[in-house]
C-alpha cells in the first residue's frame, strides 16, 4: 500500500476465528479532524475492528496504516505510543485510585520501569491534569475515589485518560452507554470539541446521539461495509433500514 493523507487507512483487513470471518476484507479511511461513527447490528464486527486497530486482536490479513505507520506488526503499547487511544465498552478505570491519580497514571511520561520509579509530578503535569479534568467535567471530583463516580462520569474519566495522552486517533466504544440525557448532551459537546486536530472513531447505537456528532457514518454488517456516507444518506439507505434501523 502506498502512503496516503489519511490519518487511518485500513485496507483488505480480514480476521477469521476458526474459519468465521468476523471482519471481511474491510476498507476504511478516516481523515484528520474527522469524527467517524461506526454503527451496525450486534455481531457486525464493530468492536473487533477497534480491537484490530489497537492490537488487541491480531489480523489474519490486510494492512492498518496510521499516519503511514503499519500497526499490525506493533505491540499494544507501541501502538498507543504511536498515538492511538482506545476507550473500552465498559468503563475501564482504576476504581481504587482517585480521579487525579487515574489521570496522573495515564500521563504519557515515565512509561518505562525506571522512568516510573523516578517520575515526578511537576507543575506542568499538574496543570495538564487539571486542564483535562476541566474538559471532561470532573474538575470538582479530582480527589474523589473513582469507584464512587456515576457511570457517565466514569465514561468521561476514561475519555480524559486518553485525552491526556493527546492521541492522534481516538477510538471510543459506546461512549454514552448508561448516560442520562443531560450527560449525553455534554458528551456530544465534548466529542465535537476534541475531534479538532485529530481523528475520532466512535461506535454507537444511539441514533439521536450519532446524528449530533457524526461527520460521516459507516454501517457494518457481518464484517463488511454495508453503507458509508453522511447521516442523511445512510438513514435513507434501504439496505441499512432492512438490516439495522428497522422499518
Amino acid at each position, binding site marked *: 500500500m502506498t502512503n496516503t493523507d489519511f490519518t487511518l487507512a485500513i485496507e483488505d483487513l480480514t480476521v477469521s476465528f476458526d474459519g468465521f470471518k468476523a471482519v471481511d476484507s474491510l476498507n476504511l479511511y478516516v481523515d484528520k479532524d474527522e469524527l467517524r461513527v461506526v454503527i451496525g447490528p450486534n455481531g457486525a464486527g464493530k468492536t473487533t475492528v477497534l480491537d484490530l486497530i*489497537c492490537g*488487541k486482536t491480531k489480523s489474519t490479513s490486510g494492512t492498518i496504516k496510521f499516519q503511514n505507520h503499519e500497526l499490525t506488526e506493533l*505491540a*499494544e*503499547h507501541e501502538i*498507543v*505510543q504511536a498515538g492511538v*487511544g*482506545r476507550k*473500552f465498552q465498559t468503563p*475501564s*478505570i*482504576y*476504581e*481504587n*485510585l482517585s480521579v487525579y*491519580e487515574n489521570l*496522573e*497514571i*495515564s500521563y*504519557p511520561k*515515565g*512509561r*518505562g*520501569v525506571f522512568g*516510573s*520509579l*523516578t*517520575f515526578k509530578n511537576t507543575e506542568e503535569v499538574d496543570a495538564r491534569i487539571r486542564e483535562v479534568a476541566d474538559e471532561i467535567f470532573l474538575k470538582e471530583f479530582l480527589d474523589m475515589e473513582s469507584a464512587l463516580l456515576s457511570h457517565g462520569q466514569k465514561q468521561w474519566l*476514561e475519555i480524559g*485518560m486518553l485525552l491526556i*495522552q493527546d492521541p492522534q486517533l481516538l477510538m471510543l466504544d459506546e461512549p454514552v452507554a448508561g448516560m442520562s440525557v443531560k450527560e449525553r448532551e455534554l458528551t456530544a459537546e465534548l466529542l465535537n470539541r476534541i475531534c479538532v486536530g485529530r481523528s475520532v472513531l466512535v461506535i454507537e447505537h444511539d441514533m439521536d446521539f450519532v446524528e449530533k456528532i457524526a461527520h460521516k457514518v459507516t454501517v457494518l454488517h457481518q464484517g463488511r461495509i454495508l453503507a458509508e456516507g453522511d447521516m442523511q444518506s445512510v438513514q435513507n439507505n434501504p439496505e441499512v433500514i432492512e438490516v439495522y434501523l428497522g422499518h
Partner: protein
Amino acid sequence: MNFIYERFLGGKNGAIGIAILALLILIVLPLALDLFRLNLVGKYLTYAFAAVSLVLLWGYGGILSLGQGIFFGLGGYCMAMFLKLEASDPETTKIQSTPGIPDFMDWNQLTELPWFWVPFESFGFTVLAVLLVPTIFAFIIGFSMFKRRVGGVYFAIITQIIALILTVLIVGQQGYTGGINGITDLKTIHGWDIRDDSSKYILYFVNAFLLLGVIFVCRYILTSKFGRLLLAMKDKEDRVRFSGYDVSNFKIFVFCISAMISAIGGAMFTLQVGFMSPSFVGIVPSIEMVIFAAVGGRMSLIGVVYGTLLVNFGKTIFSETFPELWLYLMGALFIGVVMYFPNGLAGIWEKHGYRLVGCVKNLQCVSNIKAMIVSKRATKLVSESASGE
C-alpha cells in the same frame, strides 16, 4: 527532607509504624530476650524479608508466587557455599581423601572443587552472587512467563513446581550441594566466628537494619508512580497496556526485586542459623511465606513483619506441645485469614486500631478524673478535720 518523609517513611502513619517496629526489634526484643530466643527472632526476621517481598509482588502487583522459597534458598545457598569453603581448609580436612574440599564432596568421591564453587572463595563475589543469582533466575522465569502473558493461578502453580524441581535437584546432586542434609558446619567469615555470642548479637542487628532498609526501599517503590501502576495493573491490566505501558516489563521488574529481597533474607538465615538445607527451598516453606504475608496483611510492609513473628512464635509454641497438629492449625489459620480478614493483622488494626487508641486515651481521662476526685476529697477531709478541731 520532606521528600524523604513522604516517600521513604510513607507520611505520618508510615513513620510511626516504622518507628514502633524499629523500637521493638532494635531495643525491646534484644533487652527482653535471652540470646537463644533472640537468635530465634533473628531467624524469623529473615523470613520476614520474603513476606515483605510478597507485599510488593502479591499485595500490590497481584502476582501470587508460591516459590519465594526458591530465592530465599538460592540466597542462603550462595552464602553457605562461601562459609563452607572457608570451613574446609586443608588443615581441618586433612583426614579426607582429598583435603581442602567440603566434606560432603569428599564423601561423594569428588576429587576437586566443582568450577561453580571456585568463585565463592571470595566474599565480595559471594555478596554479589547472593543479590544477583536469584535476581537473574527470577528474570529468566519472569521473562519467559510474563512476556507470554502467563499469570494468575498458572503462574502460582509454575513457581511452585520450580520450587519442587529445585529441591529435587539439590537433594539429587549430593556431591555438589550437600544433598538432603544441606550445607552444614559453617564457622567463620575471614576468621570471624559466626557462632560466638557477640557475633550472634551483631548478626541479629545487621539483619534487623537490613530489614528496615528493605522496608524503606519498598516504601519508596510503592509510593512512586511504579507503585500506583502495580495497583492499576492488578485492577485493569488491559487499561494499563492500552495506556502505553509494557505491562510485562513491570511484572518482570517487581518479580526480580522480590527475588532479591527474599535472597537477602536467605543469606542472613544462613549466617544466623549456621546452615542451609533444601527444607528451606521447597513448596512448604514457600507456602508458609505466603501465609506470613497473608496473616500480617499483604498490603502492609510493616504488618507482614508482625505476621511473620506471630505465626512463627505460634509455630514454636505449638510444635513443642502438639507437633502433629501444627500443620492443620496453620492451614486453618490461612483459610480463616483469607475468609474473614483478607487484609490480615494490618487490616484489623486499620479498622479497629483507632478504638484501641481511643481506649488508651479514655483510660487516661478516667484516671485523671479519679485523681481529681481523690484530691478533692482529700482537700475536703483536710478542711473538715481542720474545721472540726
